[in-house]
């Protein structure tokens, strides 16, 4: 702590910070461009100039940049100083020489940091009497639009894209007043985090291209606090809609999870909500036809199909909320509720969850602080992209210690990078093929899943002699020792693993490494990726495995399938047989999946944008999401189930989400605390609900006037403390129920700094999410016994392992045009020693079915391994890993 003076006011400040950070944290309005809270200071824009005084006697002072001025004891600055104010206004005047002033046609208008800063500095009239500079814009792919003429050259884009996200195809070009930010040529941006450019850019150079296709101003959108449903990380998001169309997704800051950034799958997944493939009304199969029916009739038919309920089973879904799964479980009975995980997946998930009870599972904020990492058998970027971005920051921790030793503070981004150069910390990756994090890996290990498991066991044994030994090939021994040493000597070691390779021994090995470190007295973290939004939550429900139902040969009367396409969970032959065996098939889903197409009754289910519920992320953090779209004919699964139960006279007291959430909590002790994850629907501020619409929302009294001149009341929302209205207060809203960010004078995403307790700190207004597993069974858990002996590959056979694609493997984003346009075509990747030509069409056999694909040669893949993309649209699901044969066709 240090005592600093700002405009004569005495403050306590964090001496490890700079004066811009301190001033903003204290609530002063000091303009800035190049500084970013997650990326530190570079001193390029000169916008945060303040007057610094040597001591209390100094009245002359000198102009300094607040972002480069450490908050040392007795630092004295003046923001209000006349000369400083004039200089800051002059900076804006300089930016306005070439900025096109096209705010009325700019997608950033109304949420533009440049607009805000211009007002803040008071600059109004520019003395420039020459023509403006112009640039040629580039096509950058389906996510991001490029309009270089608006650029103010703050370098934030390249600093995020290259320095933070580690991709290289966006750069700064040229010099003097024609500096250009773009690619070396037109083309799709390669980073999985490119959408963040729209929020990182202080003006309208990089904007959300999908928003542009149905553009609406920030102030005209209705927002809701939501949780991304695209993977198990649980990033907090803020979708915006108008006229029933979801327009975009903004990052919603949660300092423990996603911080300032989300991945492109998360940001652009919303497009499926608007898809014509959505199921909007109940459908009943009559003969070969499917007929649209009224909601009441659908509930009646559903009730009839349930009959006495004795031969009814329910299949849950890892992409549905806790409440939805719980409602189905309550409807059919716990012993007739099946999880809906893919074949072989449930065992792995239960194993991971039981290990999580015995270790510390770090939040992403903690992941970023780790200084040595082993990623064992996981391709984090494609399965849990936001975690990969956090791991990229972990790779900088060890080098940053050198900067601190050289007395360069960590906020001094240029200074730190000068001291650290391109150095990376001890990050190690073991995976069958190259991953997108390899560039920050000190070393990588390639092997088949069973070899990776052995490798992990060997690392554990090298850390602690009590851990079961393993047989790794001699060539890997040196690497094993290096990794063991790095983890053992690190301050905050971390192991990351997951279920991608469908290998139990890998998960056991990851646990053993952490157990070994704990026995050596080191406090280590263990993070498992979770493939779907509620994998963790459904796993904690301990339902029966889907395979049991699929392969039971029991003649079920009615099968109720909740938000799940079984054809993605098991092979087509098995699912066909299962569905044919069932008397009635009831599918509750959002889109017309292959399973839905086979159903006798289809109930239209609300997407994340239309529903409320609770999800549990990879670290067991329960988080609530709320609807942004007003009620319509589609409704939450749990509400359909409640409707049918009510009709049947069962659990009739559920009137709102709060009732269901409370029932989950009451019935299943593991979920204790989830009701506190967000305020209840009865929550009020000054007697009012929290508004979903900004106070400048326009057209409230006009948009429906062609139908009726009487303004309709806002739609009722019994499930949340939020109103479809502009009336009420957001400023003091609890963090978990904050729909959008706006503060006086701060119209852009940077308004966030007015909602944080301090810069980079938690949001004011309580915790976001409740951790369910606290790792309290720590101590000295038993080691997992050794890995099975490696298998020898049969002649001319390959072990097919699933490879996930951030764009392509996720089910619902198949219906999101921008994302699905980037999905790969089916392929089989092998190394060149397999004897195939790159691009050659082949057929491969698995589970008796033949599939076709093209060969992709990837020389890093080990002999005897074939990488097969998982979950692509219109491809058959394979039971992987499996030994396959590949034939040229």
């Amino acid at each position, binding site marked *: 702590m240090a005592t600093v003076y700002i405009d004569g006011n005495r403050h306590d400040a964090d001496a490890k910070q700079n004066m811009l950070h301190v001033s903003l944290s204290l609530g002063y309005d000091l303009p800035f461009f190049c500084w970013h809270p997650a990326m530190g200071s*570079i*001193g*390029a*824009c*000169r*916008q945060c*100039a303040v007057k610094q005084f040597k001591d209390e006697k100094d009245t002359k002072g000198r*102009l300094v940049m607040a972002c*480069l001025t450490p908050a040392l004891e007795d630092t004295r600055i003046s923001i209000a100083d006349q000369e400083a104010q004039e*200089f800051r206004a*002059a*900076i804006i005047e*300089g*930016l306005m*020489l*070439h900025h096109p002033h096209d705010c009325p046609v700019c997608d950033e208008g109304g949420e533009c940091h440049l607009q805000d800063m211009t007002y803040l500095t008071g600059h109004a009239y520019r*003395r*420039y009497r*020459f023509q403006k500079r112009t640039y040629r814009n580039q096509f950058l792919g389906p996510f991001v639009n490029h309009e270089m003429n608006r650029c*103010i*050259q703050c*370098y934030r884009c390249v600093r995020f894209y290259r320095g933070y996200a580690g991709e290289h195809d966006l750069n*700064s070009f*040229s*010099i*003097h*007043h*024609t*500096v250009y930010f773009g690619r070396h040529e037109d083309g799709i941006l390669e980073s999985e985090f490119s959408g963040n450019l729209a929020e990182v850019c202080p003006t309208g150079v990089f904007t959300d291209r999908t928003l542009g296709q149905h553009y609406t101003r920030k102030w005209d959108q209705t927002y809701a606090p939501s949780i991304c449903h695209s993977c198990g990380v649980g990033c907090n998001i803020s979708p915006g809609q108008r006229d029933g169309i979801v327009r975009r997704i903004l990052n919603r800051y949660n300092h423990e999870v996603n911080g300032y950034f989300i991945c492109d799958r998360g940001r652009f997944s919303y497009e499926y909500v608007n898809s014509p493939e959505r199921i909007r009304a109940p459908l009943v199969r009559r003969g070969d036809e499917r007929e649209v029916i009224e909601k009441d009739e659908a509930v009646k038919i559903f009730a009839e199909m349930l009959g006495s309920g004795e031969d009814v089973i329910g299949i849950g879904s890892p992409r549905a909320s806790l409440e939805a799964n719980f409602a189905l479980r309550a409807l059919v009975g716990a012993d007739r509720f099946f999880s809906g995980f893919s074949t072989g997946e449930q065992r792995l998930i239960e194993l991971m969850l039981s290990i999580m009870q015995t270790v510390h599972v770090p939040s992403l904020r903690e992941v970023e602080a780790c200084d040595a990492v082993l990623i064992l058998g996981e391709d984090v970027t494609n399965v849990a992209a936001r975690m990969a971005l956090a791991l990229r920051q972990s790779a900088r921790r060890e080098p940053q210690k050198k900067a601190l030793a*050289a*007395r*360069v503070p960590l906020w*001094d981004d*240029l*200074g730190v990078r*000068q*001291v*650290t*150069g391109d*150095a990376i910390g001890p990050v190690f990756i073991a995976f069958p093929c190259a991953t997108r994090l390899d560039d920050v890996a000190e070393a990588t290990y390639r092997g088949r899943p069973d070899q990776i498991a052995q490798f992990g066991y060997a690392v554990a044994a090298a850390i602690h002699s009590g851990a079961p030994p393993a047989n790794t090939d001699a060539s890997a021994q040196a690497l094993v020792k290096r990794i063991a040493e790095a983890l053992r000597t690190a301050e905050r070691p971390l192991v990351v693993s997951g279920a991608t390779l469908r290998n139990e021994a890998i998960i056991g090995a990851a646990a053993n490494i952490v157990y070994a470190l704990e026995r050596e007295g080191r406090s280590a973290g263990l993070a498992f990726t979770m493939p779907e939004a509620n994998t963790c939550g459904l796993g904690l429900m301990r339902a029966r495995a889907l395979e049991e139902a699929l392969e039971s040969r029991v003649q079920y009367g009615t099968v109720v399938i909740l938000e799940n396409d079984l054809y993605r969970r098991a092979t087509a032959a098995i699912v066909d047989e299962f569905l044919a065996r069932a008397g009635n098939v009831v599918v509750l889903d959002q889109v017309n999946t292959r399973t839905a197409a086979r159903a006798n009754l289809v109930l239209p289910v609300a997407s994340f944008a239309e529903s409320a519920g609770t999800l549990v992320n990879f670290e067991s953090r329960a988080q609530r999401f709320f609807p942004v779209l007003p009620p319509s004919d589609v409704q939450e699964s749990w509400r359909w189930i409640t409707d049918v139960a009510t009709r049947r006279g069962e659990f009739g007291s559920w009137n709102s989400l709060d009732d269901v959430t409370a029932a989950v909590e009451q019935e299943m002790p593991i979920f204790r605390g989830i009701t506190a994850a967000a305020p209840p629907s009865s929550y009020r501020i000054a007697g009012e609900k929290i508004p979903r619409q900004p106070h400048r929302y326009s057209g409230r009294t006009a948009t429906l006037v062609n139908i009726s001149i009487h303004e309709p009341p806002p739609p009722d929302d019994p499930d949340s403390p939020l109103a479809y209205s502009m009336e009420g207060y957001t400023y003091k809203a609890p963090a978990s129920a904050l729909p959008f960010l706006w503060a006086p004078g701060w119209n852009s995403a940077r308004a966030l700094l007015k909602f944080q307790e301090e810069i980079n700190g938690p949001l004011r207004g309580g915790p976001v999410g409740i951790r369910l597993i606290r790792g309290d069974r720590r101590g000295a858990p038993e080691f997992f016994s050794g890995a099975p002996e490696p298998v020898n590959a049969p002649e001319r056979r390959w072990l097919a392992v699933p490879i996930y694609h951030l764009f392509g493997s996720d089910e619902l984003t198949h219906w999101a045009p921008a994302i699905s346009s980037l999905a790969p075509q089916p392929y089989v990747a092998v190394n060149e020693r397999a004897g195939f030509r790159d691009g050659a069409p082949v057929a491969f056999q698995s589970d008796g079915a033949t599939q076709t694909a093209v060969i992709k040669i990837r020389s890093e893949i080990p002999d005897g391994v074939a990488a097969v993309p998982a979950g692509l649209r219109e491809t058959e699901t394979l039971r992987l890993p499996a030994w396959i044969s590949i034939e040229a066709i």
Partner: protein
Amino acid sequence: MPSQPSEHEVRVLSRRFGLPNSASIDTYLANDGYRALEKALKEMTPDSILEELKVSNLRGRGGAGFPTGMKWSFVPRQSPKPKYIVCNADESEPGTCKDRLLMEYDPHQLIEGILIAGIVVGSHQGYIYVRGEYRYLIDILDRALEEAYARGYLGKNILGSGFDFDLYTHTGAGAYECGEESALLESLEGKRGIPRIRPPFPAVAGLYASPTVLNNVETFSSVPPIIVNGGKWYAELGTPRNGGTRLFVLSGHVKRPGVYELPMGTPLRKLIYDVGGGIIGDKKLKAVIPGGSSTPVLTADAIDTPLDFDSVAKAGSMLGSGAVIVMHEDTCIVRAALRIMQFYAHESCGWCIPCREGTNWLKKTLTRFHSGGGREEDIGLIEDLAKNMLGRTFCPLGDAAAMPTIAFVQKFRNEFEMHLAGQPCPFEKHGQLVGA
């Protein structure tokens, strides 16, 4: 060809200029070449070399005039990383062409100076970063390096001393900014030529985040004579706080423009009238830029200023790179200001806003002003924009553009006012600015 020698010169660094094959190692060896290296390796310690440098009062010849001995002493003796010697041969300040001659006519003197720096700080690798437009000098330097390797002055176990040193040349791509030492390091690392922040200083984290000594060509070239003849001898050549001689680059409206080696502290009058032979056409002197285009202009009444760092500073300017640009009475000062601003607007690296936007705006304003389209308020605007850069930009390039501009407006305001008649420039005939 080097300029015709003047009898007023004290030739220390330039004493081999004009010798037959002066760039060859044989000529060099025949004229005391590599004697300093031998002395440094066999008779001296790093500390005693440093001591000689400190006694010599040698100050950096790149422009800032920082004491060289002190700079070298900042490099940590123990370092887990390799240490580097980097020679700044990115000579691009308008009016300056002295380093060019040192590389063209006496490359071995430079190599020897770099080697001695390597001995002092315990470095075994060095780079000569040559201005992109000096591409032809690369051939000369590479040939000299080859000769030095062949004769055992570079490479392993130099002169049997056990000291190893490798030296490489590297060209810039034409950016003035890369003459700023930290931008040079970025460029040398293959990155965009933008300046770095300080601290950390290059002595701690320079090239590849390693301790680095970075000096100008002339500074390194001054080292061998100091080692051979002693620091005291060198110091006495100049004035008390400004040791030695300096290569002055005389250009503009003088009868004998050229590069002349003179003791520090030589009066400006002597340089222009005795060494340079006076002003073309015996016209009246109007103004002098004393240290390269970035330094504030002096008026004719500063003609008796001694040319050393401190005296020129006292007169309100800077000795900078020692490039003296002379302007006679027919010169249009507005045009001179414009020409200089054209250069800085083109060379602004684009990193910080005041310089990037300010230089370009100034260039446009001066262009229109000079051609008769100026308004009275433009004079204030020009001064205001320049002051907005002064001391407020990320690196000194903003200062380099601001300082001459402010001086032109303040010292020659009447000439700016003469352009307000709505007519093209009132100076019918512009004198040519030779070399500028």
